[in-house]
């Protein structure tokens, strides 16, 4: 007590400093010990100590002038240390909460299905055609197209089908105009071969081209034939082209479509516009058949008949060439295991979506 009296002139300062220091001491314990287990607790803690208006540390900072000069430095240091502690505890707690939040995951159901996006698809005929085209393009073939309504000359005569010849019966034809003295008959092309003629009319050899397109046949509709289908025809005219070259390109094609070990055979046949002519069969494995499979025809081909070349002003002594043609539907049906051609033209979505 005497002390208090003795230093009465400094009593205010000494007592004030004392009170502030004590207040700080008392706070330090709370700063250290307050439990920060909820976001609310952290918020309250921050407001209680650091709020600009009523924070207890803020208050103490305001009381620095009360503290005696010789204590000021230490008081200041302690207060700052206290403040730093508060801040650091808030930060640690917040980080911990954030971590727990992440670990808990967001507050919505992630197992709900995604927003549906409509799925589209390419028709299996397009897919098969693209596959075929890709093979031949990789072997340097160009692609050409031509009209579906054709004249008799391009569809038959220029391709060495003589008038009144039974070869014309090989392809049942839809006619649009009967021939007259003034002009040729008009018909729906029965094959894409007339485009060969159109290409050769406009270009001199070398010619290396494939021709995809829609063709028409006047046949009864059944599981294996439709009134129209799609063909890809190939033509290569150059010096020194032989049947051996034809076999090579067709074999390469068959390997790409039906596997490296595809078994293939060339069987003599007849097409008016090629000579010699062949049909190409591949061995189709089928455990249910007595022979373990059967030969399936995939295309026709041959060496371009000299009559066709000469008819277009191409010297058939100098140039030889091969041609081949296949039905895209047939290839698609083999590849995808489709057993009825009509389903390709029905376009049921349950069918189409299988080719997405």
């Amino acid at each position, binding site marked *: 007590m005497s002390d208090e009296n003795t230093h009465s002139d400094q009593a205010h300062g000494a007592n004030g400093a004392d009170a502030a220091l004590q207040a700080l001491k008392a706070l330090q314990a709370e700063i250290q010990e307050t439990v920060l287990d909820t976001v609310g607790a952290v918020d309250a803690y921050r407001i209680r100590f650091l709020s600009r208006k009523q924070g207890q540390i803020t208050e103490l900072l305001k009381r620095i002038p009360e503290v005696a000069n010789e204590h000021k430095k230490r008081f200041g240091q302690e207060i700052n240390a206290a403040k730093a502690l508060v801040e650091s505890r808030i930060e640690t707690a917040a980080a911990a909460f954030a971590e727990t939040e992440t670990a808990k995951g967001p507050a919505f159901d992630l197992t709900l299905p995604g927003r549906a996006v409509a799925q589209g698809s390419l028709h299996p005929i397009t897919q098969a055609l693209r596959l075929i085209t890709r093979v031949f393009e990789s072997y340097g073939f160009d692609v050409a197209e031509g009209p579906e309504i054709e004249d008799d000359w391009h569809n038959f005569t220029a391709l060495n089908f003589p008038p009144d010849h039974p070869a014309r019966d090989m392809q049942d034809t839809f006619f649009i105009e009967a021939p007259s003295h003034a002009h040729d008959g008009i018909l729906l092309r029965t094959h894409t071969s007339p485009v060969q003629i159109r290409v050769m009319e406009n270009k001199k050899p*070398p010619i290396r081209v494939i021709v995809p397109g829609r063709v028409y046949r006047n046949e009864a509709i059944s599981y294996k034939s439709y009134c129209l289908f799609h063909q890809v025809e190939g033509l290569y005219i150059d010096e020194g082209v032989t049947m051996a070259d034809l076999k090579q390109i067709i074999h390469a094609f068959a390997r790409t479509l039906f596997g490296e070990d595809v078994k293939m055979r060339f069987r003599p046949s007849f097409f008016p516009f090629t*000579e010699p002519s062949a049909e190409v069969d591949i061995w189709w494995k089928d455990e249910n058949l007595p022979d373990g499979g059967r030969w399936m025809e995939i295309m026709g081909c041959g060496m371009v008949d000299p009559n066709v070349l000469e008819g277009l002003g191409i010297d058939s002594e100098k140039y030889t060439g091969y041609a081949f043609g296949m039905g895209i539907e047939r290839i698609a049906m083999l590849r995808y295991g489709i057993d009825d051609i009509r389903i390709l033209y029905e376009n049921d979505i349950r069918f189409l979506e299988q080719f997405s």
Partner: protein
Amino acid sequence: MIISTNWLSDYIKHGLTENDLADRLTMCGLEVESVDFIGSDLEGVVVGRVVSAERHPNADRLSVCQVDLGDGEPIQIVCGAPNVAAGQKVAVATIGTTLSLPTREDPSVKADLTMKQVKIRGEESNGMICAADELGLGEDHSGTLVLDSDAELGQAFGAYLSARGTVLKDAAIDISITPNRPDAISHLGIARDVAALTGASVNPPAVAVPAHGGLAAEQVSVTIEAPELCSRYVGVLVKGVTIKESPDWMKQRLLAIGLRPRNNVVDITNYVMYECGQPLHAFDFDQVAGHHIIVRQTSGETSFTTLDSKERALPSGTLMICDANREVAIAGIMGGENSEVSQSTSNVLIESAYFDPSTIRRTAKALGLQTDASYRFERGIDSEGQAWAAMRAAQLMVELAGGELVDGIVDNHPRPFVAKKVMVRAARVGQIVGVEIDPDEMVRLIEAIGFQVSTVTESPLKWEVTVPSFRPDVEREIDVIEEIARLYGFDNIPEPQHSSIPNFTPTSSNTRLLREKSRNVLSGNGYRETYTNSMLPAEVAEMFNSTSLPAGRFKGETVHTLNPITTEMSALRPSMLPGLLKVVGHNQNHGQTAVKLFEFGRVHTKKKTNVTLVGEYTEIESLIVAASGNWEGQGWYGSAREVDLFDLKGTVDLLLASIGMSSIRYADSKPNDIFDYGVDVYSGKRLLGTLGKVSKKIAQDYSIRLAAFVGELDWGTISELNSTNGTPRYVAVSRFPVVERDIAVVVEKSQAVGPMIEKITTAGSPLLSEALVFDVYEGKGIEDSQKSVAFGLRFAADRTLRDNEVDQAVSKVLKALEQEFGAQLR
């Protein structure tokens, strides 16, 4: 054509199994479609002798027989045949033998039965003594088939039968004959190819062929008035024939190749045709007036009754066979009822002629009547085979019908055959086929099929090849090369290890590249590609030949086919719309609630235009896109939304932008027969197509329940406009900030927004880079007759824009909107 392997073996001993034969034929160009095995070889059935036949102790109708099979102890067999008796030679099916037996319920149905040791009413039985029907030899079931008494005990019954000329087994090989092989439409023709393949020789039946003259030539006269259509007419007379059934062996062979036996004379003409390829006709000689045959064309339309009792209208110019008074046959196609061979016929005139292939083909087409004869004539028969075939038939008629050959032959041959000669260079074969074949081998191969080869020069090796009369298809060097290649075997041609590709520039068309890209864009955006029929009922084609659709804009006529399969497919589509609507309807009726489809294809109209390639037809490529039902499906995130026109516009915008087309604009197309409402799409001034809502009536016709939106675009025009637009050109990207300003203006409700955007775009130029509509509002705060439209404007330049220049651009836009549309800033 079907051949019988038994029949074939009359002419060639090839030593191949049926399946090997079929493979070899296929690989030489005679494609075998099927091999059917006929009959059984009766393995296990042997010749036995009935040693004793006692009545069965427990059954009156059965006998217990002891049968000697020539191998020691006789065996016991219980037999039910009434005629079985000791001493008979019989056919015995031994234990383990399987026979195909007529079933009791229906003797025409057969079932396999394997012989087992059994007890019949207490007596052991070790096999079966067979009746004829049980052996597949006819239908006789009346009793045991009793064999010749000199039959060898224990001999296989099959061998017993073949020694007596009866054949048990046969194979029918069905061959698909290509049009270039008229020589192969007969057994002898096939035998020639088999000879070349195997080295065996062909042995045709020996037939004596006289020259023109003799008694026959006095009794029959033949006049050919159309020698250019009938280069040869041969007649042979056989008198005193008895019309009856053919012998079993002939009936068996005809049945094997799918022909119905009729009577001996008619069967013989068919038999010889299938033997050598020459069609024959047998006239009842007593019905041939004046015993005079005239070959001539009809001079006007004629009616004629063929032997199938059908009256046929013959066009003028039809080649006919006539007698002194009337027509008796349609040359090369079918005989007449008035002169056909009947039960009472006793004198037969055999016709064997060569008719012009094109003439026969035209007549057969005109009459819609293809016969075995016309099939051969129109392909071209052997020019030299007529006399042989006629004499062969006469020989068989003498043998099988008890006739007497009238000496001699009528052989009217106005245009004798001249063999073709073709020069063939040995080296050329390698140039075509790609493999060096030994020249001696080449000669062997073609000589085996009847060609004659003589060397013209040794170096370079060149041959003169004489073409046989039965190969009308062979005329040029390449034809001979084909024969060599096919007999050599395509499978023997080696593949080269390398190939060269010509030095040229591929020029794939832009049309195709753009199409393929668009397919990817559309399928990548939820559309499914379809392929629909190009052929439609005429009235549907007519309805969609509309000026609202790309092809219809040419104002051409609908294209019809002259010979449709059905009326459902008699016209070509002028639009892909009906095809797609059918698909939409089909899918909606099969439970699909969201249908988004597209298709590329050709559409047609009859009118000559600047894109016409053929005749007076315009064929353009069209792209159709269609959507019906839900655009967005219902999910936990929201409810479903049905498709509307703006969805389709968005698709078309995306599509056209993705192939590099800019400045696309739309204009309201007036309501029409196809669409309730819709818009025309333009690029600049060029019309690209139309999008719209399919009219209620049409939707109903196609059972479409949900609103359907369709766009059909003229892909030809789109490709043409993009012809140079393949490679994008880089434009420097601005490094300066973009300035955005929003404006809202009030206009009359009826004011279309499309033209306002176009106006803004021009008025805001060059700083304005983009203008989009972000709100259209009617209602509170806006007068009833008006609406508010809000635009977001983006300004950019290759420098930092100052506020005041953007302000100026905005006020230019506002002023333009006010002047043009009376728009007021809101």
